[in-house]
């Protein structure tokens, strides 16, 4: 789910892995079963990314990273200790990756209401931080 971002695709991959398991049961060393399953899942995830062709689009984009120090403004904002990991995730997905609330909710397995709540809390916190920093800049 983490690697493909869509539950239906993750389900397809998991089902395919168990199917492979059934078909190859006799030849599998059961003590190495977890590693075997994870290898199959990784291979299926690789196939998925190849099919989507998204990686090619990414490869053709400008991948330069500007502001590579920890003093970089966005990362400094995200380092606010009052932000929990889930707040940082929602903020980054929403305002950097410009995902919709529905997309974030589907990816993280949360309700849209929960995502909106996390975003509202985070915005309020960062606005306060901004207001404190602005007079010095």
């Amino acid at each position, binding site marked *: 789910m983490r690697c493909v971002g869509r539950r239906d695709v993750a389900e397809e991959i998991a089902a395919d892995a168990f199917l492979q398991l059934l078909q190859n049961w006799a030849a599998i060393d059961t*003590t190495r079963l977890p590693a075997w399953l994870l290898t199959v899942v990784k291979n299926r995830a690789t196939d998925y990314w190849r099919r989507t062709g998204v990686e090619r689009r990414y490869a053709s984009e400008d991948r330069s990273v500007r502001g590579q120090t920890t003093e970089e403004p966005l990362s400094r904002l995200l380092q606010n200790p009052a932000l929990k990991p889930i707040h940082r995730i929602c903020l980054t997905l929403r305002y950097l990756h410009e995902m*919709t609330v529905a997309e974030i909710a589907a990816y993280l397995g949360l309700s849209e209401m929960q995502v909106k709540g996390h975003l509202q809390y985070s915005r309020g916190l960062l606005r306060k931080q901004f207001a404190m920093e602005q007079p010095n800049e």
Partner: protein
Amino acid sequence: MSNTDFTPEEAEFQAEIRAALASAGACPRPQMLMAAVSGVAFEGAEDVLRHLAACPVCGPLSRDLAEHQFPAVSPEEDRRIRARFPRVRDRSPLWRRWLIPAMAAAALVLAVVVLVKRPLRNAALQQISGQNPPPNAAAANTLPVSPAPIRIPAAAVLTFRGGTTNARGYMADLMAALQPYRQGDYLHAANALDALSKKYPNAVEPSFYLGVCQLLLNENQDAAISLEDARRRGATPFKDDISWYLAVAYQHLARIADARQEAAAVCAHPGDYHDRACQAMAELTAR
């Protein structure tokens, strides 16, 4: 991912942090980031990893996402995954189509052998452990116990929990603990599963298979406790299995009303244990 659902307040906020956002560079999509981190070898994965090493936003994001608990497999997803298997069996070569019925027949023979041997085995075990025989365990009247089939938890693979480490560790531990179970050594299996159920307090499988082992060892009181514990842990994929084995445990303990209630729950809908449960219910009601 084009965003069309920004509220005016959000658009204003984004404008406020525009300078910060502009400094972040062209970041890969989070799914692609996590795929690269998890070792999915797609074209461009090396570029993503290079970006990750340098980007002050993607590094923390990948760590946060690795810690995030994605929801486990829902009963509906579990049912859909399981539903695919019979279709494949139909397309299998002839020898494989015979394999499953042959295995079922072998399991039946094995069950008969185990049931015949069980009183001897139990007597020996009771001598070792000093346990008293369970109440009302007169062989003629007890529901038969057969080993539950081993099921691999789909959730462990589907959710990629904790960046695969936890899932992999759990699966390895579970398979090792079930190895003696597979070989019919229920005493060693019970010891291993007991330790596993303490190590993974939220996992259903160790408690469930521990309960089955204890039933097979005629430790009915302990079996009922373990199976009730499995149910408390979230029994969804094993709902019927737990109800059926609890019905057997309760019946062995002479808790006939409880046994009838569990059997009725299984008998109420189609499933692997449906016929056995309905038959047991009829027998329990007739007593």
